[in-house]
């Protein structure tokens, strides 16, 4: 009898070991550890609340956690897990949890999970009404059972929460009709109760690229503006912008640049958008097109109808990637990553004339292992770099005023 117990225990231990090894491998390759703690995060998203509190939402140990800082990232209050259960979170390179704070301090979160073994996604959302002490049970943003990923959320000046994401619900009907279906569709919804409930999902445009982040900003007239990698005729995956007339009326898509990147693949590399107080659209993106290759920046001073000639960014031989632009209180700031074969640096340049001219790029941070995309965030007084690294932990660095 004793021997049989021993056999059973041995078998159980071995089986558990295998299961743990499989799960462990999923998370350790890009994160430093496999707990919900910030130091174990693979993706960290910052935002400032209206009272100047810094909020982070991060993905670690299969959970989305949230914490706040009253001293600009020097110290954080005890984190709260917004998703109590361990989830199969979307770890695609351009996926990350999204966080937005309303005027009363309510917190809206949105994130994606993989809902099945085929890596079909689902966008979930939750909200905290008690200053981040607790979060509602996450709910799907749409009832559709088809894949959704790459959500983005933001509050407009009236407190309406706007959401957009990539949605594959048109794929099956198209295929059933014998038609070829490319990419996904850009869907959107809005919430008038701060992210407690969302309006019915509607489509802004069909056949966009399906694997790149979508970025949202609001123009000075409070219109949502969304940039995304589109699929133009002949499978050209170049970027487009849509300016909404209001939270329910998408405008026509406008092409940002003719890069001519014809590729039937997942670039996993989406654009970034910022809109200055004067209404200039600042866009930065990656392409490997026939017309140009690398990172580029362009601006539009007519609400996205036309864009300046693309400006090349970074050192081509150092594989510049993951650009991010912010219209800050002291000018426009652009960051991106470069890799020299050993270490990754975050490089930065700024513009004091709304994107017309730029300072010489300089390196502001570096790391020697995997890192998240560099992000910029402002409290209206200063601009900060937010960067999660596997080897050096979370970095929150004030950007000096150069303009």
């Amino acid at each position, binding site marked *: 009898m004793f021997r049989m117990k021993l056999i059973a225990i041995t078998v159980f231990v*071995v089986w558990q070991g295998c299961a743990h090894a499989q799960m462990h*491998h999923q998370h350790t390759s*890009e*994160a430093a550890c496999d707990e919900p703690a910030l130091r174990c995060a693979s993706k960290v998203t910052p935002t400032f609340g209206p009272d100047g509190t810094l909020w982070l939402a991060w993905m670690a140990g299969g959970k989305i956690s949230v914490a706040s800082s009253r001293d600009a990232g020097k110290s954080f209050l005890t984190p709260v897990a917004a998703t109590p259960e361990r989830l199969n979170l979307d770890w*695609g390179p351009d996926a990350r949890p999204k966080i937005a704070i309303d005027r009363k301090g309510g917190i809206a979160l949105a994130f994606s999970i993989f809902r099945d073994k085929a890596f079909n996604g689902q966008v979930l959302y939750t909200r905290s009404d008690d200053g981040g002490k607790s979060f509602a049970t996450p709910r799907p943003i749409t009832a559709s059972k088809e894949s959704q990923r790459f959500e983005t959320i933001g509050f407009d000046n009236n407190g309406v929460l706007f959401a957009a994401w990539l949605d594959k619900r048109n794929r099956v009907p198209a295929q059933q009709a014998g038609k070829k279906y490319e990419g996904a569709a850009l869907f959107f919804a809005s919430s008038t109760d701060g992210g407690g409930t969302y309006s019915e999902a509607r489509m802004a445009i069909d056949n966009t690229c399906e694997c790149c982040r979508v970025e949202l900003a609001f123009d000075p007239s409070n219109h949502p503006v969304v940039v995304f990698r589109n699929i133009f005729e002949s499978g050209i995956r170049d970027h487009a912008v849509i300016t909404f007339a209001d939270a329910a009326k998408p405008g026509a898509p406008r092409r940002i640049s003719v890069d001519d990147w014809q590729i*039937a693949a997942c670039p996993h590399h989406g654009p970034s958008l910022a809109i200055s107080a004067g209404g200039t659209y600042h866009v930065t993106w990656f392409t*490997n097109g026939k017309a140009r290759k690398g990172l580029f920046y362009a601006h539009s001073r007519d609400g996205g109808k036309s864009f300046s000639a693309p400006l090349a960014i970074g050192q081509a031989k150092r594989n510049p990637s993951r650009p991010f632009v912010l219209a800050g209180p002291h000018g426009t700031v652009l960051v991106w990553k470069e890799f020299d074969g050993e270490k990754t640096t975050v490089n930065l340049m700024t513009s004091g004339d709304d994107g017309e001219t730029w300072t010489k790029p300089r390196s502001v941070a570096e790391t020697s292992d*995997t890192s998240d995309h560099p992000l910029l965030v402002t409290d209206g007084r200063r601009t900060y770099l937010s960067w999660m690294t596997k080897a050096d932990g979370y970095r929150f660095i004030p950007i000096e005023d150069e303009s």
Partner: protein
Amino acid sequence: MRREFLVVALLLVLLMPAPAQDSGTQLKPFGRGSWQELMKAHAGRPTIVHFWGVTCGPCKVELPQLGAFMKDHPGIDIVTISADFVPDLPAATRAMLERSGLALAENWIFDGFADRLRFEIDPTWQGDIPRTLLITREGEMTTIEGSAEIADLAQWTARQLAAKK
């Protein structure tokens, strides 16, 4: 005692994760220096290296086509490298290779700092997948970005095999 040992052994085998014992699909960890190792091992042999990933939509379509191609063209070396952005999933990767008829190909999976691994292969590669490299006997490399046309692979293969002495 011997009988009990056999019982333990049998139970262990039965409870091992299915992909590890059923398939025998080898998935080699692709780390620092693996690219040089791979190039050396295939030197002088026409080789198709295919980069893909389990979360990549176009890859799901192309992978079974590559499996069928391998079956029809036994004279060419087929190497697959799962280069999905980290973290990668060995079990899902094995399952997809098996379903695609590529269990017997030379299969690798990225293991480690993906930016550095990609940099060793091609410093200008940002990580888009699928991606296929056609490497001649002389080591000349052609890169196909995105899904490859199987007819193009067949033509290239025919040329390579015709050039064989």
